């Protein structure tokens, strides 16, 4: 009895703010601050309309999609190569390499924002797509590598031995045997990377200058109203910002949880 109540209360706590926000996003401006209501009496899509007309919200969406997709593609590919080498090949300095890559997860991003800004400015990459993809790649890489190393290691080594004896060199083994079998792990990693890129804020804030390249989180945070905070539009934008992530979760929740907890439990 008690566990069930606790669980339900907990889930309500998690769900309530989203529900209220979604509700508010379809509440006409005039009724927004009337006080908390559970069920709306009037519905209006005005906020969503304004979002895509006056605020051109499709721009940040486009930017986020491009940056997240490119980063994910690069990250999973390069990360898979790196993880395979660490998991299966013999070379000296393996521990150092893995340690270095993992150390980056513990970096406070703020510590390198300004040098990175200067570096990107030197390279002419401020306010460009590559200017975001590069830092994102670096910071998404450790998690990717760690997850994939764990994943590759638990694939039966005998399959790779068999492929080697059958005449496949290391690269062919990777392509013909390992990667197809690692597809679930690769998928989980891709999803987690995409979510990271979609949500990233600090670098996007620091390295973009205007609406042409701003990503979704930055665009939302910088919404300004003429007289007051435009809550209707902010919340509508929030719902829109959450939608792709929510869809990914709905489709892949099992994979995501496996990915999240993989390294942690098995150790």
């Amino acid at each position, binding site marked *: 009895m008690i566990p069930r109540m606790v669980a339900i209360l907990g889930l309500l706590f998690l769900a309530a703010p989203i529900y209220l926000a979604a509700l508010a996003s379809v509440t006409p401006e005039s009724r927004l601050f009337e006080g908390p209501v559970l069920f709306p009496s009037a519905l209006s899509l005005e906020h969503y309309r304004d979002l895509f007309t006056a605020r051109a919200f499709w721009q940040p969406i486009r930017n986020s999609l491009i940056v997240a997709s490119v980063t994910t593609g690069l990250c999973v590919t390069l990360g898979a190569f790196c993880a395979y080498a660490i998991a299966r090949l013999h070379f000296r300095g393996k521990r150092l390499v893995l340690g270095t890559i993992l150390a980056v997860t513990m970096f406070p991003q703020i*510590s390198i924002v300004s040098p990175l800004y200067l570096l990107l400015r030197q390279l002419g990459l401020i306010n460009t797509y590559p200017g975001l993809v590069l830092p994102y790649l670096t910071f998404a890489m450790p998690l990717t590598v760690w997850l994939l190393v764990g994943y590759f290691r638990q694939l039966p080594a005998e399959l790779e031995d068999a492929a080697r004896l059958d005449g496949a060199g290391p690269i062919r083994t990777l392509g013909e045997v390992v990667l197809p079998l690692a597809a679930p792990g690769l998928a989980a990693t891709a999803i987690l990377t995409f979510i990271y890129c979609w949500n990233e804020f600090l670098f996007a804030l620091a390295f973009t200058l205007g609406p042409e390249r701003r990503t979704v989180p930055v665009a939302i*945070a910088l919404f300004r109203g003429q007289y007051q905070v435009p809550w209707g539009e902010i919340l509508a934008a929030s719902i829109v910002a959450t939608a792709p992530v929510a869809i990914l979760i709905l489709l892949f929740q099992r994979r995501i949880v496996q990915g999240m*907890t993989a390294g942690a439990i098995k150790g």
Partner: protein
Amino acid sequence: MQARGEARLAWLLIAPALGSVVVIALFPLAWAIRESFHLHDLRAPWLGQPWIGLANYAEAAADARLWLALAHTVGFAAVSVALELALGLLLALALHRAIAARGPVRTLALIPWALPTVVAALLWRFLFDGPTDWLADPLRAWIPIVLADVWKTTPFVMLLLLAGLQTIDESLYEAARIDGASDWQQFCHVTLPLLRPALLVALIFRTLDALRVFDLIYALTGGGPGTATEPISLYAFNVLLQNLRFGYGSAIAVIVFLVTFGLALLYVRTVGAGLLEEES
């Protein structure tokens, strides 16, 4: 012969990933350290970038706002992480026993974790901004901040611990029950010890993340009212990208790095060594 060819291939495969890490993370870090020993004010370029030794650090040591920011950060981390672990554990235990429909529950639980932090911040700001004026109160402004953080990250802790709970063999509980252990004793002697690895992982990840908090507070209170809710990363951000004092800001950034990374190393050394390695 074979071994050398294999090693060469390995380095080839690692190079891009390692390269990006070195260029984008390590090199700027070295640069920040270097900058922290120089004067570099972008608003006063005529001053050049002279070496000033530890002057920036001396200024940092005397900077009241910096110490306040550090205090905010550590306090926030302590409170948030404690709440998240407790709540996460509670929910994990409850879900483990109570609810059968895993899929929909996981989906629901994951959404707060998966949405952008600034969106979460804005949601909670909306919930508090209208009905109350807490956001204008230096002490009470922390409440929506902590709530938002707990709301957003408890799912991660909960799912982690739930997965950990699911790996505990049921027969251990059965054996304990036959030996006469009460629910509480079962919890203390079976659940907690076996959950220890997962708890430690949750603790490490959450502490490191909490110390680095930026997005949440930027969007919720902007560090306000005044500097009442300013964490150290936001302070560094302001110094760097608003005051444009790159030298001093770098010193602060280095301090943040030392604190965070130092703590991380400490964790890894004492607790996580087994978690990082698994030599075949």
